[in-house]
């Protein structure tokens, strides 16, 4: 990707986010449900309700509401949460790191596990292991993240309770963190008791989100590797005495990784969506979990802020994937 391509993509990203803002704003006003009704006490008079409405600007016309909100967003102000009475940016800032850590861990797990299994499967071509692997992987492909979450709760939380069932960190640990990136911070500050506890809490939601990704990586990567392994350049390298593992990793992998990378990017954005339900199941204090609360409370500014944040992540991931793809494939890359 050239610099002008990148600028182009960033420009398109801004346009896309603008579209997302309009759509989410309109949708939320079409869907029934009144945020004020969730806040008032039963003894409130119609005058109280009208005052509250005016306070949140809900008495204004829709275009006017959108204009005020949008101008504020451009200034970096996402408004105040109606249910929590706190700044939306601040709330998102507190929760997003937890979700990013979880999603990134699941991504790393899915790619590494999938990559290793695909490599082993490629080395085991024409043995009995190969079809067995495909069969098992087919089963894994069919199980979605929330089913994994429930199965893991039963397996590793109830029958064989090795991992904590809920939360992000043991509250009795009383560790003070300076940032909201607990996992990274505990690693940087070499606080291994906190790190271990964070990992233990993360294992199950990470597996729930990462296993479907791993299955997809295995499927696409193995297919692409099989195609690459019969190329003449692999044959020549084999004749020159290259070991089977190096043939896969050095000769085939870089030529086979393209489709997997693209699909992983798409899948990663699905996975961010999946965090909503998986975080809920494990009471993991991330952005997804907060999104459900926000919807239940009809907390319009908070929902808008969260959706815009998710949208920005989707777009950034897609640009990143294209950058990596260009870097991996010298034919598409810029030389200089």
């Amino acid at each position: 990707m050239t610099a002008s391509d990148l600028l182009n993509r960033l420009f398109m990203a801004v346009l896309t986010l603008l579209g997302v803002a309009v759509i989410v704003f309109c949708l939320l006003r079409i869907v029934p449900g009144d945020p004020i009704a969730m806040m008032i006490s039963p003894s409130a008079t119609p005058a109280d309700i009208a005052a509250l409405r005016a306070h949140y600007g809900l008495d204004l016309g829709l275009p006017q509401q959108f204009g005020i909100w949008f101008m504020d967003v451009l200034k970096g102000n996402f408004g105040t949460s109606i249910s929590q009475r706190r700044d939306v940016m601040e709330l998102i800032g507190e929760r997003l790191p937890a979700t990013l850590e979880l999603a990134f861990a699941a991504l790393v797990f899915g790619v590494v596990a999938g990559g290793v299994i695909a490599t082993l499967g490629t080395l085991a071509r024409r043995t009995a292991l190969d079809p067995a692997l495909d069969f098992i992987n087919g089963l894994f492909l069919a199980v979605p993240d929330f089913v994994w979450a429930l199965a893991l709760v039963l397996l590793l939380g109830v029958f064989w309770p090795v991992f904590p069932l809920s939360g992000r960190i043991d509250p009795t640990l009383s560790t003070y963190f300076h940032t909201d990136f607990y996992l990274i911070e505990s690693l940087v500050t070499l606080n291994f008791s906190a790190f271990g506890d964070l990992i233990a809490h993360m294992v199950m939601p990470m597996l729930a989100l990462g296993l479907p990704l791993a299955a997809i990586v295995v499927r696409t990567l193995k297919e692409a590797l099989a195609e690459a392994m019969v190329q003449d350049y692999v044959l020549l390298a084999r004749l020159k005495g290259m070991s089977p593992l190096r043939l896969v990793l050095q000769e085939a992998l870089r030529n086979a990784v393209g489709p997997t990378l693209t699909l992983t990017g798409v899948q990663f954005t699905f996975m961010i969506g999946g965090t909503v339900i998986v975080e809920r199941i494990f009471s993991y204090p991330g952005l997804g979990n907060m999104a459900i609360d926000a919807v239940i409370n009809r907390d319009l500014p908070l929902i808008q802020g969260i959706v815009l944040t998710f949208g920005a992540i989707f777009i950034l991931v897609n640009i990143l994937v294209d950058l990596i793809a260009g870097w991996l494939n010298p034919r598409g890359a810029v030389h200089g």
Partner: protein
Amino acid sequence: MTQPLVAIEGLSAISTRDGGAPVLRDVSLTLEKGEVRGLVGESGAGKSTIAKALLGILPSTVKVTGGFIRFEGRDLLAMPRRELSDIMGRDITLIPQDPQTALNPARRIEAQLTDGLRLKLGMSKAQAHERALQLLDEVQIRNPERVLNAYPHELSGGMRQRILIASAFALNPKLVVADEPTTALDVTVQKEILRLIRRMQEAHGTAVIFVTHDLGVVAKICDRVTLLYAGKVIEDGATADMLTAPKHIYTSALIAAGPRYDRPNAGLEPVPEAVFRQLRAEIGIAERRV
């Protein structure tokens, strides 16, 4: 030393996929050191199967049912895998057919050209680099440093084939198997590549098995020719003898079928069906193999 470099004796093979149809029928031929031998025939004649057998890369669908391939007196078909992989890539190397697919698009030329030097000879990176520069000079590539640093897609087809030739001769092999190395190239580039293979072969004293379906190519480069049909050796001899005084009717029909530059308007003359009938009768097959 009177022992030939390669002696194929009574080699027979069948295709397990094709209901056990024979792909090689009692093939025998010998190759002396430093000799260029053409293996000629149409598709399915068995020339590629012989080449693959020499390289130890027969597909799993081909089963050898009899015979030997002796390389310096040792039977390649009965050799333990380890010894075989010692010989392959060092004493026996390959110039592949298509330079578009024979170079890894994701690796720089230097890495691919020096693989064999580093893996088989244990050269250091710096030694291999020096040797790679020499090799590129031998195959007449200017700007060797730039080429070593390039990716395959930055080079022309002829350039890539030169690199593959350099790579095939890098370890001073005793035998190079050239699998239709000019088929994928322009006619003008073909001529240069043929000349280059011949020169490299003479300089290194290497024997070459040249697989082709093109008698014109054979005339330019080969000392001796083996003509195959349906897995059977039809005629075998010195190139000049065979082209000027063919013994078999199929050979003369093939020569007559080639384009004639001295008579450009004469048109092409296909090999008559009667010749194929005679061939099938001689070999003992009912159907013409395609």
